[in-house]
């Protein structure tokens, strides 16, 4: 699970500081897709950056799978991301030189030599995950040879191949048409439920709200749980 506990994030703006996230408490639970919505500039992406441990909060805690990430140095936060967090970016952000299979296998190599067991486990999951996202037949294709929807599927598989406890998803449908967007949202929902990851999904587009288990709205850096849907 992931817990953002009373977190505040500010950033400099000239001589002043702007508050991007204002004392937000948010919990992502295993097997639940939590949608984070709100207008542009409301602090959704800052919240995701905090959850991804890419920035440290000015105050409050970010707890990932029982580990207080806000107390860790940069190297340890990187290791925490590598082992327990999966990220799906707004754009697929695939490496152009790598095939779909290699995009997933690279997750076993990010820490250099790392532990042999972990690398073996990641490699062992690659083909199964590509099948799970419907791309088993496209494993040897590079990003330029895939459609936008296929690239986003590869990105989702990449975010899950190391079996993270937390999945962070940033506007996954922004570059897709409505039908493909619905497919991607359904895929994220299915994989979250199957694998028991705690998923935080930022979106400004509620057209795919059926894929969300609960929704948190962020306005001016403050968050409020607005809907919870029982399955």
């Amino acid at each position, binding site marked *: 699970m992931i817990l953002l506990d009373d977190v505040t994030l500010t950033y400099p703006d000239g001589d002043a500081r702007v508050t991007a996230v204002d004392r937000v408490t948010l919990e992502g639970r295993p097997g639940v897709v939590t949608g984070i919505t709100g207008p542009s500039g409301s602090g959704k992406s800052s919240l995701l950056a905090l959850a991804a441990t890419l920035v440290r909060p000015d105050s409050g805690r970010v707890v990932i799978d029982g580990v207080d990430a806000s107390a860790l140095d940069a190297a340890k936060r990187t290791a925490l*991301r*590598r082992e327990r967090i999966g990220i799906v*970016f707004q754009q697929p*952000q695939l*490496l*152009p*030189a790598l095939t779909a299979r*290699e995009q997933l296998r690279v997750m076993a*190599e990010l820490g250099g030599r790392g532990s042999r067991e972990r690398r073996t486990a990641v490699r062992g999951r690659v083909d199964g995950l590509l099948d799970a996202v419907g791309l088993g037949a496209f494993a040897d294709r590079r990003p330029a040879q895939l459609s936008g929807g296929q690239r986003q599927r590869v990105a989702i598989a990449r975010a899950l191949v190391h079996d993270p406890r937390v999945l962070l998803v940033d506007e996954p449908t922004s570059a897709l048409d409505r039908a493909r967007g619905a497919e991607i949202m359904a895929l994220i929902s299915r994989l979250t439920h199957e694998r028991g990851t705690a998923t935080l999904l930022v979106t400004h587009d509620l057209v795919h709200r059926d894929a969300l288990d609960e929704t948190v709205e962020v306005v001016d850096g403050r968050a409020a749980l607005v809907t919870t849907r029982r399955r």
Partner: protein
Amino acid sequence: MYVAWRDLRFARGRFALIGAVVALITLLVGFLSGLTGGLAAQNVSAVLALPADRLVLHPVGDAAATFADSAIDQATVDAWRTAPGVDRVTAVGITQTRAERPGASTAVALFGLDAGTSFPAPRRDDEIDLSAGAAKDLGAAVGDDIAIAGSSYRVAAIGGDDWYSHTPVVALTATAWAALDERLGGTGQPTVLAVSGSPAWDTVAADTGTTASSPLSSLTALSTFRSEIGSLALMIAMLFGVSALVVGAFFTVWTMQRSADIAVLKALGASTLALVRDALGQALVVLAVGVGVGIALTALLGAIAGGALPFVLSPLTTLAPAAVMIGLGLLGAAVSLRTVTSSDPLTALGSTR
């Protein structure tokens, strides 16, 4: 190296291009090194072959001592011979002139010294020992007569490949050399003392008004060697600099083009160490292949040109420049690491590519 190997495969055209540039620079460096070695050997091999711990020269006036101007009188020779700690002093006369035999003539360096040392020298005043180069130029064999400055000498032996100032060496006895030098307008005094032992070198040198340097250090007293090797060494140094700059510029541009990928990898959890290892490993592969091809071409061309040019193919003229090329290339590539270390993973969020 996971991403690095795949980048090499994916952008093989670009990497082949930079590899070819590295290979060409290595070829230039290797060829210049071989040529420098060959020219150096033709310039100083006889000096380095003299049997000495130190070579003693006598400077003229306030000028620095040189092989061309040095002249050592008998008192100085005796002072060195009787100095405590000196085991052996060999007086050597050096001058240059022409040697002739019917149908052949060549410039030679005359070395006058008495037999009994490791340096080849005849035992009789009417005999000479030819170096292999002199024998080849004159087409002479043992027993042939060679004319030098109007006197005839019989070839007693043909020895090693000794050269001095780009002329092959002809050795005479000290007495024969002194007579020849006087006929050529010289003083007949020896030019250099080859001294072995462990005396108080600086004290004896100061007392006798001479300089005593190791054979290697004394090469700077050979003006042609200094200017020739200095020019070639400068060219080699500049090529090393160009190589480091070219490799550094390539990898800097390449890494900057990949900065978005690097940010994504960092956001996904790549350690900076793994990314640095990846980048340097990639540079090492390109350098190793480029330098390897360059050295192979150098060896091939050196073997072909070796018969016509003074060219030395040895580990010093191939492997040493190769190691320097790789080292400097990696140093250049290390400049690009700033992009890797300073890349902010936060930029991966919200960036559109």
